[in-house]
């Protein structure tokens, strides 16, 4: 446990050498707050929800602008989006301290009227998840019909124009929302790291897009090893989004200012080694052909995709847990 002094003067007095004020980082106001205990279930939700949103977006682009040969991956994207959104709903409900009251998020318990606050990201997020869930369900039904596994007339209409395009566009927008709002939700708090930067939403969105592409690559390689053109296109997408993610991560860290001291812990090391080195740089080196073998063993697109998924999960672990460890005990800010 490291206890930080709360004020500049205290730090200066404790130092054996005189230290000018401007060299001592000011403790941000966010450090004087308490953690909301959003831990593993929420981290999993951020990861799975982001992947669900990203998968839907990629499937929608493949549906609207891809080739007929891309349709199996499109269907896979819609299935994953639906599974992801169902898991997200379960994780969020289980994480509540009173899960049986989950519906209070949508309906005012006393009046029966809809509960909606456009200025509360959690309130908007609940409705966003609900609408995205609806579109991902419809898209998954359409995909089942498209694959020939479901022979039900209404599902066929979902797979045909104009409904198919409407669902793809509306769900794609919902997917983007789900991928990015979680970062905004964290920023609209008063907690260290989360509220000290405006870039977390964008960073989460890029990470969700890269993780979704990585999962599609991994699963598509197992299901249809023959369709290399579609998988290569996904890999190209992943490479470019990883570059964007790296830029956003650097900007995010710079924007934190003195709040970046929250990363002076095991989570900072995790950020460097797992998120940046293993989750972004290595997959980029593999993707651009700069690294093809390690100790004689070939590095494939699958290896790169698995690393991207690891990095995407670790990014959420690091950003959530680095903040959760800061709290106030007595009158002191404490970093555990």
């Amino acid at each position, binding site marked *: 446990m490291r206890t930080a002094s709360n004020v500049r003067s205290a730090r200066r007095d404790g130092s054996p050498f005189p230290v000018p004020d401007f060299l001592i980082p000011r403790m941000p106001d966010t450090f*004087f707050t*308490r953690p909301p*205990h959003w831990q593993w279930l929420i981290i999993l939700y951020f990861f799975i929800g982001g992947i669900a949103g990203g998968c839907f977006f990629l499937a929608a682009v493949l549906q609207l602008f*891809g*080739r007929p040969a891309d349709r199996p991956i499109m269907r896979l994207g819609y299935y994953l989006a639906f599974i992801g959104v169902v898991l997200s709903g379960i994780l969020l409900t289980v994480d509540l301290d009173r899960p049986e009251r989950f519906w209070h998020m949508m309906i*005012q318990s006393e009046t029966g009227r809809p509960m909606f606050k456009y200025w509360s990201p959690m309130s908007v997020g609940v409705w966003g998840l609900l609408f995205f869930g609806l579109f991902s369900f419809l898209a998954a039904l359409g995909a089942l019909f498209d694959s020939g596994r479901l022979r039900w007339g209404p599902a066929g209409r979902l797979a045909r124009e104009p409904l198919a395009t409407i669902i793809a566009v509306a769900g794609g927008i919902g997917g983007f929302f789900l991928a990015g*709002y979680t970062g905004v939700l964290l920023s609209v708090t008063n907690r260290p790291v989360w*509220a000290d930067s405006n870039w977390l939403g964008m960073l989460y969105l890029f990470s969700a*897009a890269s993780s979704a592409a990585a999962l599609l690559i991994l699963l598509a390689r197992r299901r249809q090893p023959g369709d290399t053109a579609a998988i290569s296109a996904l890999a190209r997408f992943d490479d470019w989004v990883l570059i964007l993610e790296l830029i956003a991560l650097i900007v995010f860290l710079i924007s934190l200012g003195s709040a970046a001291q929250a990363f002076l812990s095991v989570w900072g090391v995790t950020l460097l080694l797992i998120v940046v080195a293993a989750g972004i740089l290595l997959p980029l080196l593999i993707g651009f052909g700069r690294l093809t073998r390690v100790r004689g063993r070939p590095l494939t697109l699958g290896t790169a995709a698995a690393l991207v998924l690891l990095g995407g999960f670790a990014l959420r672990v690091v950003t959530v847990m680095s903040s959760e460890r800061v709290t106030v005990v007595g009158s002191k800010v404490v970093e555990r």
Partner: protein
Amino acid sequence: MAEPMGFFTDTTVCIGCKACEVACKSWNQLPARDGGQSEMSGQSYDNTLRLSGNTWRHVKFVEQFESPYNGRWLMLSDVCKHCVQAGCLEVCPTGAIIRTEFDTVVIQSDVCNGCRACLGACPFGVIDINEVSGTAQKCTLCYDRMSVGLEPACAKACPTDSIQFGPIAELRQRANVRVEQLRAAGESRARLYGADPEGPLGGLNAFFLLVDEPEVYGLPPEPELPSKQLVPSAALSAAGAAVVGAVGLVTLRHNRMRDVAEAERADADREQREERPS
């Protein structure tokens, strides 16, 4: 709406007796921590350590000693600040947190579902989950007592009047007089925290008289609403979505464009062959 009511806590007359903590627990029937097992924290005389879902008053002890006989004690009875612009109320997705007719902020335990959004939104780290109810809880400024004209239990129990209860306008006047009195007596560091309606969060309905920087007491110097990040953060996310959308269009449409180009080239070759004289 009734007149805004609140607390003025004069930390200079707090003797750290914790009568406020006991009175609060007693009136609000809040359970002891860890089943009542006594545990010494090792942090001065502060064994409560923090406000929580079942501790709505907490006396902080700050020891400022350079040597055993050269120093001073600072004591502050901490509580929910009942902010005029309340971050917890802003983010609560269930509508469980409301503003009362006394301009105080109250959590309705029967509505709260324990999502914990308010915990991270509070700029002072006041709110926490009550393990018994499974809901977020904090000081209500004794809403039940105020409704029948009684003062909150903590203020009633305070033996030195460190905690004063009353209409906010009247408390501010009293606080300003006290600051002047302390400065005249040589305590130049005396200041009010949260008394300025033009200041952070529109002022606090539970404000304090301090004799050092707020950070020394574990209070943020410039508390802010969580929503300050909403528009810029959402705008950057939307911009990110646009960029990812463009990258997706370019990379995933590539195969189709290549197929189309190849088909056009094949058509052109065929037409050329057909037009070429045999």
